[in-house]
């Protein structure tokens, strides 16, 4: 039986989004759009793990401020990060006192959280939030080497983004605060949960290649259910990076569809990649969260983008399974986001 996309008939809207980011990200092309940043990536904390928690707190706080919602009015928050036991989220969101679901979908968690929060709102909750983060320093410690370790990065190795993104969803269009600059309200119209796909990649520094088949699988299933790539202003993947993006375009082309004109990758958008160590692009669940929150969604609100497919991509391995010579399965979750033109803009 073919799995169909889940359509959310009841309107579920993204009331606001916000982000926090580190110094490398602040100096990147999207730097001015982030709501909070830190020159030493510490965010005033004494450990990298707490710094990542603080980024989540700052991002959600900023998003709540933009929506003009009180934390006590949120029914649930879905949050995740890359650390063991999901600690950046647990500790970062503790002070809000919002009912909490911790998620792990590797770098796909931003899309996973958006899907679950939108379905929660579609099923009776009023307001929900989705928050994700990654921090270069805490991720490097967990997945690779100590920070001061003198290693060489291979050309395909992606750079874990130091950033967090928060999204606040509501089931009521009139609940969304509108100002003069808002021409459309982003609505999550349909979602397509991802299926883990393992195509035998075992190189930890070529995760784009591990995730691309999963992204191709989810997109192909979505297009087969009756959508054409040309309908979308942008098809935004999470963090396939340079190699992964190229592979995805080829895999989609082999199904007779073309996404070369409207495909962008958050990992390639967040840095000026050429000439730096970030040559293969960014990764991490803070990457797509921050780019969506501070670039893509604001453009939907401004009416620049009318319809966007967001495909969060993740690599579902751990350092332990890699040491055990395991392969790296990829996963990709999809959200179909439409800008509903406001009455004022009509």
């Amino acid at each position, binding site marked *: 039986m073919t799995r169909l996309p889940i359509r959310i008939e009841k309107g579920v809207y993204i009331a606001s989004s916000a982000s926090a980011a580190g110094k490398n990200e602040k100096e990147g092309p999207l730097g001015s759009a982030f709501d909070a940043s830190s020159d030493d990536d510490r965010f005033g904390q004494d450990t990298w793990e707490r710094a990542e928690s603080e980024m989540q707190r700052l991002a959600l706080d900023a998003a709540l401020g933009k929506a003009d919602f009180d934390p006590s009015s949120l029914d649930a928050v879905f949050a995740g990060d890359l650390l063991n036991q999901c600690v950046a989220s647990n500790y970062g969101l503790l002070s809000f006192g919002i009912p909490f679901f911790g998620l792990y979908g590797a770098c796909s968690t931003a899309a996973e959280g958006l899907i679950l929060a939108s379905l929660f709102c579609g099923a009776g909750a009023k307001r929900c939030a989705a928050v994700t983060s990654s921090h270069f*320093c805490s991720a490097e410690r967990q997945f690779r080497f100590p920070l001061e370790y003198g290693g060489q990065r*291979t050309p395909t190795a992606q750079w874990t983004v130091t950033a967090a993104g928060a999204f606040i969803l509501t089931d009521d269009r009139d609940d969304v605060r509108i100002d003069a600059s808002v021409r459309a309200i982003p609505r999550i119209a349909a979602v397509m949960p991802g299926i883990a796909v393992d195509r035998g990649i075992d190189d930890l520094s070529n995760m784009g290649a591990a995730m691309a088949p999963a992204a191709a699988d989810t997109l192909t299933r979505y297009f087969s259910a009756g959508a054409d790539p040309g309908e979308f202003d942008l098809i935004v993947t999470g963090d396939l990076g340079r190699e992964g993006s190229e592979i995805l375009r080829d895999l989609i082309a082999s199904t007779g569809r073309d996404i070369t004109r409207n495909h962008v990758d958050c990992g390639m958008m967040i840095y000026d990649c050429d000439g730096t160590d970030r040559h293969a692009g960014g990764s991490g669940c803070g990457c797509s969260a921050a780019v969506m929150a501070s670039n893509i969604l604001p453009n939907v609100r401004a009416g620049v983008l009318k319809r966007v497919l967001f495909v969060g991509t993740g690599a579902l391995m751990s350092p332990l399974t890699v040491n055990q010579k395991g392969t790296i399965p990829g996963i990709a979750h999809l959200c179909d986001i439409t800008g509903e033109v406001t009455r004022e803009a009509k």
Partner: protein
Amino acid sequence: MEYLRAFIVGGALCVLAQILIDKTRMSPGRILVLYVTAGVVLGAVGLYGPLVDFAGGGATVPLTGFGYLISKGVKDAIDAEGAVGILKGGVTAAAGGITAALFFGAAASLFFKSRPKR
């Protein structure tokens, strides 16, 4: 001239490791283990000693030299004291380097903080 020999032999040992890293994606940790055990083996079969005589620092500074030191320590200790040398010789010969690395490393953790890469 002796410095040139040290430079060339030491440089060549590094190039060999670089090729392994780039071509086989071998991790740095495995390279280090490979080099130290290779040093023990080459020392044991009598090949590394002559290289040390030829290249000086070019053979003793790379991690293969650390392995050679262990094998030489084991051999000398067995020659002098018999079977107990099997357990004593290696670490005794390498004691200075090991202590320096652990002591300086632990001390560094008290004075320095890790920082993000740019």
